[in-house]
């Protein structure tokens, strides 16, 4: 049974979005994603200052059994990248909701409405 966190937005490509303050969000991958991937060995992330756009690939997660693209759930400019993941990619397995990937300034906050709620995502991964 995959863990879910209430109040987050979820994408069908298994990323979550947490609103920090107006127009500022954290992006990560879901517990379902990390458990499907298995032991994560490498996270390929863009740099602060780069832009991401909704439904476009922005990086990749490699595990011992697969490599999977990261798909942006929202559009915006990257304010910060979680550098801890570079040295310790296994953090994604330990706590995928605490260990975010990107901090992003939203360019189109309306996009959040297109994402799933915890309940809808739970239904989606059933």
């Amino acid at each position: 049974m995959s863990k879910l966190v209430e109040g987050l937005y979820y994408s069908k490509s298994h990323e979550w979005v947490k609103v920090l303050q107006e127009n500022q969000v954290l992006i990560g991958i879901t517990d379902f994603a990390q458990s499907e991937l298995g032991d994560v060995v490498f996270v390929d992330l863009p740099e602060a200052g780069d832009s991401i756009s909704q439904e476009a690939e922005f990086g990749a997660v490699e595990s011992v059994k697969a490599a999977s693209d990261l798909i942006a759930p929202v559009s915006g400019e990257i304010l910060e990248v979680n550098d801890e993941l570079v040295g310790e990619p296994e953090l994604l397995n330990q706590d995928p909701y605490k260990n975010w990937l990107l901090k992003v300034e939203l360019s189109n906050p309306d996009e959040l409405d297109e994402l799933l709620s915890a309940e809808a995502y739970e239904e989606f991964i059933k």
Partner: protein
Amino acid sequence: MFKYFPHTKADVDSMLKTLNIKSIDELYKDIPETVVFNKDYDIPSFMSETELRSHFADLSKKNQELTLFSGLGIYDHYQPAVINAITSRQEFMTSYTPYQPEISQGTLQYIFEYQSMIQTLTGMDVSNASMYDGATSTAEACFMACAVTKRNKILISETLNPNIVNVIKTYLKFKDLTWDFIAEKNGETDFADLENKLDDSIAGVVVQKTNIYGIIEDYQGYSETIKANKSLFIINSDISTLGVLKSPKEDGADIASGECQSLGMPPAFGGPTLGYLATDKAYVRKMPGRICGYTHDLEGRRAFVLTLQAREQHIRRSKANSNICSNQSLMALFVTVYLSLMGKNGLVKVNELSYQGSHYLYDRLLETGKFKDRFNKPFLKEFTLETSIAPETIQTALLQKGIFGGVSLDVFGEKYSGLINFTVTEKRTKKEIDQLVEILEALS
């Protein structure tokens, strides 16, 4: 010694019986009749052993044993006999890189040693387990630069060997990447033109040392300028020369690439040769190929392992930076054995002798009055002179006396018209050099 045993008729019959079929052909019955080759193969009848031996003896008589003064990427350096003795052992010669690599500790160990040697010569943090040849390793270095910088254009110095340029162009074309030349000035890369062409589309800059003319270019200021533009600096060098020249690291390279044929491999037509690629640790995830490392097993014993192989090469091919999923293992063994034997001092000696020989030939050729130096720049084992004697005249006269090279640069295009490359390795004797000069002196 022999591990290959063909199936006997009894083996085949037993398998057919198990499969409940009458002939091997039945295994292929799903292949449509229309695409099956049903004719005679038209292969000549067999020969007896005596006939075969004499047939090959005749063929081998067509080979010419030539004295080589040719260079431009492939060099006639001394190959100690031990290399063949070791590399022809069947454990090395005929074994493919195993799919469970750790079972072949010997193979992984010599690849590990090879990597360490390349790291030492280039000064870089990491070397991969080898690549097909110097030209493709340099093209792969361009891919790497594009992947690291997320940019799509490469600047190539006009003083890079045109053969390497062509390989890079071919590689880039199919990745939708573009390139431009940096002009040459007096036989060297024009630094002002480089500064001029750097912008935020440039992923990497490729230069060659020693360059197409044999000139040892000075890269003072290059690394700072290229880094300031957030591009990567790629230096292609013949690995043997790094025994005495500034290392790519000292020249500020982000990626060092080039040819290893000069370390123990014969100058054979068509190869095989070997490319090296070394880089900064920061770029290791974008590096093509694989890395062997060493660790300790559960009982604390030293163990060699395949440490890294960017996984995308196998499981996300469409997005891979590189599709090299192999390495040039046997040729890497040539390098490892060669360098173990020659050592640091040996490699320096090779270069010193080549330097002395090439400078002696250079002086003698200028003395004839039939050759001129257009550039007057420092060189190591090869140099380029200008002459009004036709390339065919030179080649014919030399071949008649069993000599190959100087090589005319004419084939590379009009710009190179009248230019000829001479290369002298430690194998060339004073007598051979004097004979070359004597023949050339008599031409007009």
